[in-house]
């Protein structure tokens, strides 16, 4: 079992090393063969490990194995140890599956691009880091994976580094997430200070045995600090600004890292730390509120975006907010459920967008598309499936996972009607902007540049096959958990019960009773379908039936529209408030004064000049002039004698 577990992580590392060092000399076929076998093997091992774990007599108790001592400093100890339970099972299988499909897609997508081997080396390295993150058995090792995925994100966003906007975007991503990481690190330190250990097994068993109300101050602080890391990594308010810019990277990167895996690390971390959050309801409330507001906020921005990838980026931010709402109201399994379904349909959306980009030689402006469903049937159909899924249309996966979250927001241990209503409205907005994108890109008359028209073609099999597989999962992944209201067994929720049960129970017992009467599950479902339907209808009216309407509305609501199109000017505010003063401070003070004057001038050049000066002074003694020698001898003798006599 311990070998299998480790074997999940090793193929991507090996692939990264091989392609990284020797890839330059390999032909493309070899590079992609190495790079795609790695996640394939990981997927295989993930499934084997899952099967082995399921047959362990100790199941569902977590399986932990320490491979070697990594850090040992006094009382602080962090081993390279892996932790496997049902949650890990879900994460490893989902991550490796989506990753494998995206690697296959990239073979076709990156064919004409330079740096083929570099791309796949980074992509494999990313997978290794992500798997480390989800299987780690202690916070420092998880942080290694956390930082590792951040590094790979930087490398991949800035993949086309000769382009200034790309390298700037890479820097922005890394630096903004770093801010969150400060919170994460502080949280881990505080946790160590409180428990004397950062090991999951140790801390979580202590937490489960802790009576409610104890250590609430410290635990709430830890919870908030850890969540700060999640705010950065999972692009929530106010640290979301890097994700839209991250679209500078190649589209498979956007699909894998910024939709399905890296950005979900924050959600995973919160879910993994459920035992801690169960004792800190205030921290969870902050998680839920942040998630909900972010979801709404990002959805409003998405309404007005014309760049397809940017629109999908804001959509991702919004959906991540949903996941945090799920965890924040105490239904961790709902958050993870949505994480899983979202991974499928969001990566599908990005890959389909990539397919469109290829057909239109890089065009991403929705205003310059239209009628593509005639020339790109497969892309159109898969995009449609994903749109239905994300809008929460009944029957597809998104409906079930979103419903689980909405029900939780209303009825969960920390549920609140305000969260519920805001989330439901956001669902309506989601349906609207997604169908708007669908209609603008694939339906109606073609607004494509005449020069590009003849080149519009469906993408090759290497790209469309993964699309079809993802579409399949976007439909069926929801059926692992049919809600009770529809007579289902909520299998997914029950499967993860052994992981989350104690925390959910604790939260239910300590939370205030829900206000008003709880609506039935069917009512929740019905309302969400209603809002989604309204969104679809408005999109249909605006972008298929009365295509003149949107421009008239944007003219009428000019102020609001400008606000949305310019993303509420948040980037500009940050630039003015933070970036510019920092830049000024750095240039004027740190660079000119500290670096140039103090270090270069005073210390480096200064010490050299002092030495030279001293040497110059001493040089005068060696004048070659005998009389001065005589004088020095006399002087020396007098001084010495004086010293001896006067002592």
């Amino acid at each position, binding site marked *: 079992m311990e070998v299998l577990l480790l074997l999940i992580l090793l193929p991507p590392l090996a692939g990264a090393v091989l392609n990284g060092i020797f890839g330059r000399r390999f032909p493309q076929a070899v590079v992609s063969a190495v790079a795609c076998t790695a996640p394939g093997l990981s997927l295989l091992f993930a499934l084997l490990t899952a099967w082995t774990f399921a047959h362990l007599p100790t199941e569902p108790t977590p399986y932990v194995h320490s491979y070697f001592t990594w850090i040992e400093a006094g009382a602080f100890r962090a081993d390279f140890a892996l932790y496997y339970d049902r949650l890990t099972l879900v994460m490893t299988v989902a991550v490796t599956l989506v990753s494998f499909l995206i690697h296959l897609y990239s073979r076709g997508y990156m064919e004409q691009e330079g740096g083929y081997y570099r791309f796949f080396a980074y992509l494999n390295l990313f997978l290794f880091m992500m798997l480390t993150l989800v299987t780690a058995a202690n916070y420092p090792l998880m942080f290694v994976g956390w930082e590792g995925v951040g590094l790979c994100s930087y490398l991949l966003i800035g993949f086309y580094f000769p382009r200034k906007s790309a390298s700037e975007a890479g820097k922005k991503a890394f630096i903004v997430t770093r801010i969150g990481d400060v919170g994460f690190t502080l949280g881990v330190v505080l946790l160590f200070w409180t428990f004397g250990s950062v090991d999951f097994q140790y801390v979580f068993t202590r937490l489960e045995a802790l009576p409610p109300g104890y250590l609430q101050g410290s635990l709430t602080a830890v919870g908030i600090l850890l969540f700060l890391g999640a705010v950065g990594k999972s692009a929530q308010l106010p640290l979301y600004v890097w994700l839209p810019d991250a679209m500078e990277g190649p589209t498979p990167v956007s699909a894998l890292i910024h939709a399905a895996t890296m950005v979900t690390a924050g959600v995973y971390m919160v879910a993994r730390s459920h035992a801690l959050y169960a004792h800190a309801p205030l921290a969870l409330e902050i998680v839920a509120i942040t998630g909900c507001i972010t979801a709404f906020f990002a959805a409003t921005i998405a309404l007005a975006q014309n760049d397809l990838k940017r629109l999908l980026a804001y959509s991702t931010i919004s959906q991540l907010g949903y996941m945090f709402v799920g965890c924040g109201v105490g239904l961790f399994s709902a958050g993870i459920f949505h994480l899983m379904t979202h991974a499928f349909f969001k990566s599908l959306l990005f890959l389909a967008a990539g397919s469109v980009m290829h057909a239109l030689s890089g065009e991403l402006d929705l205003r310059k598309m239209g009628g593509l469903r005639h020339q790109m049937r497969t892309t159109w159909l898969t995009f449609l499936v994903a749109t239905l899924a994300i809008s929460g249309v009944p029957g597809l996966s998104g409906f079930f996972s979103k419903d689980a979250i909405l029900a939780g927001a209303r009825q969960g241990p920390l549920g609140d009607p305000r969260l519920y209503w805001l989330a439901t409205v956001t669902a309506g907005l989601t349906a609207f902007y997604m169908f708007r994108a669908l209609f603008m890109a694939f339906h109606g008359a073609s607004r494509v540049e005449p020069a590009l028209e003849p080149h519009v073609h469906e993408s090759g099999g290497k790209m469309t096959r993964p699309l079809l597989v993802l579409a399949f999962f976007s439909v069926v992944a929801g059926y692992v958990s049919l809600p009770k209201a529809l007579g289902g067994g909520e299998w997914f929720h029950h499967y993860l019960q052994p992981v989350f049960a104690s925390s959910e129970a604790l939260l239910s017992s300590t939370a205030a009773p829900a206000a008003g009467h709880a609506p039935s599950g069917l009512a929740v479902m019905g309302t969400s379908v209603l809002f989604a339907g309204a969104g679809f209808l408005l999109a249909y009216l605006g972008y298929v039936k009365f295509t003149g309407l949107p421009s008239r509305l944007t003219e009428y609501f000019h102020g609001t529209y400008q606000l949305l199109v310019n993303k509420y000017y948040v980037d500009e505010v940050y630039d003015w408030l933070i970036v510019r003063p920092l830049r000024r401070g750095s240039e004027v003070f740190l660079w000119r004064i500290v670096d140039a004057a103090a270090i270069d001038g005073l210390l480096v050049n200064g010490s050299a000049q002092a030495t030279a000066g001293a040497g110059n002074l001493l*040089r005068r003694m*060696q*004048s*070659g*002039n*005998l*009389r001065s020698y*005589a*004088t020095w001898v*006399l002087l020396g003798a007098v001084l010495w004698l004086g010293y001896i006599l006067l002592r």
Partner: protein
Amino acid sequence: MVPLAHILALSVILFGLGAAGFVFRRNIITIFMCIELMLNAVNLAFIGFSRYLGNLDGQIFVFFVIVVAAAEAAVGLAIIIAVYRNRGSLSIDDFDSMKL
């Protein structure tokens, strides 16, 4: 009896004159004479102490000093003659090959 203080004062004055001449004079023969003067000033001091301590040690030491002075004068003058033959000058300021 001449007071010791007078002898020592004379010795110091002679030594001072010798030192001053050694530093300020240009002709190398003059400098040599000043060196001899300094040595003899020291001899005078030794003799004075020997007399007032009733001890012959000082006078014995004077012998040593005289011998050393003689040897040094011989060697030194030989060097000066050799240098004079090469440079054609007795001014110490002209002996400046070691100057940078």
